[in-house]
């Protein structure tokens, strides 16, 4: 009788220890999964900020070509920007928040300039050329701000 009780208690003990161990293992696995998700998120966010830094560089090159009146080369750069902006907007949309709409506006700025640059006599009027250059510098400023905000979020994540 005593022996039977002892077996019962030891079985129950093993069960409790097993359950505790299982719960601990599940918890560890969940934590590891969460850590993996967070790490992946941080990498993705890093990629987003790198991508916007590159985009800013492309816009700066476009500005130099526009200032130097190298219309054909500027048009190639404008087309590069027009291909990249919607792609990056779609790809990194979850990190962009309100900046997604701003990117749409910037896309429209570059689109108008690309159309103008593909015309017969692109930006041969002084006022028009000045306005175009000013717009591109504004766009660079906006891209820089977006890049800055992405970096700030990345810093928060750690």
């Amino acid at each position, binding site marked *: 009788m005593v022996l039977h009780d002892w077996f019962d208690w030891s079985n129950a003990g093993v069960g409790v220890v097993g359950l505790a161990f299982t719960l601990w293992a599940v918890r560890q696995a969940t934590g590891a999964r969460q850590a993996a998700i967070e790490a992946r998120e941080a990498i993705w966010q890093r990629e987003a900020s790198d991508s916007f830094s590159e985009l800013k*560089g492309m816009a*700066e*090159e476009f*500005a*130099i*070509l526009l*200032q*130097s*009146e*190298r*219309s*054909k*080369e500027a048009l190639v750069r404008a087309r590069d920007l027009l291909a990249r902006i919607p792609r990056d907007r779609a790809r990194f949309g979850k990190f962009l928040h309100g900046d997604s709409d701003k990117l749409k506006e910037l896309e429209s700025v570059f689109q108008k300039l690309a159309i103008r640059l593909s015309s017969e006599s692109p930006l*041969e*009027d*002084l006022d028009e*050329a*000045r306005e175009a250059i000013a717009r591109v*510098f504004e766009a*660079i400023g906006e891209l820089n701000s977006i890049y800055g905000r992405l970096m700030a979020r990345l810093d928060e994540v750690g």
Partner: protein
Amino acid sequence: MMSDKAEELAAQLLEKTENGKLRWHSEPGGESETYKTELEDELSFWIKRKTDGDDKVILFSLTGPKGTVLSKSVDNILSGVVRFGDPVVGKSAFPKVNQFRLFSNLFHAARKTAIGKDQTIEKAQLLLERLG
């Protein structure tokens, strides 16, 4: 030093041209597009642009009774001058680009006064109105 003087003069000419105080006229220049303005029949400023595809060369000069006193040539060829990826915002970023912009702005302003776009448009509108 002479080059700085040319930039200084170009900046002054640009301001006066844009304010309507100075008018330029077109000059035959072969392959180049040339504009000239005279000051008291003795001094003349010339601005000439030669274009070959995307490549542009602008020649700015001042001539007196004894010939050319000062001249400056700028172009928009970037290879070896501008390293892409450098920051562009700020005047010191690319002196060559800024220099080209100054003379190109003067060229465009001179052309605008020489062609007299506004007057031509007004004249065209008047002629169309007359047709009824």
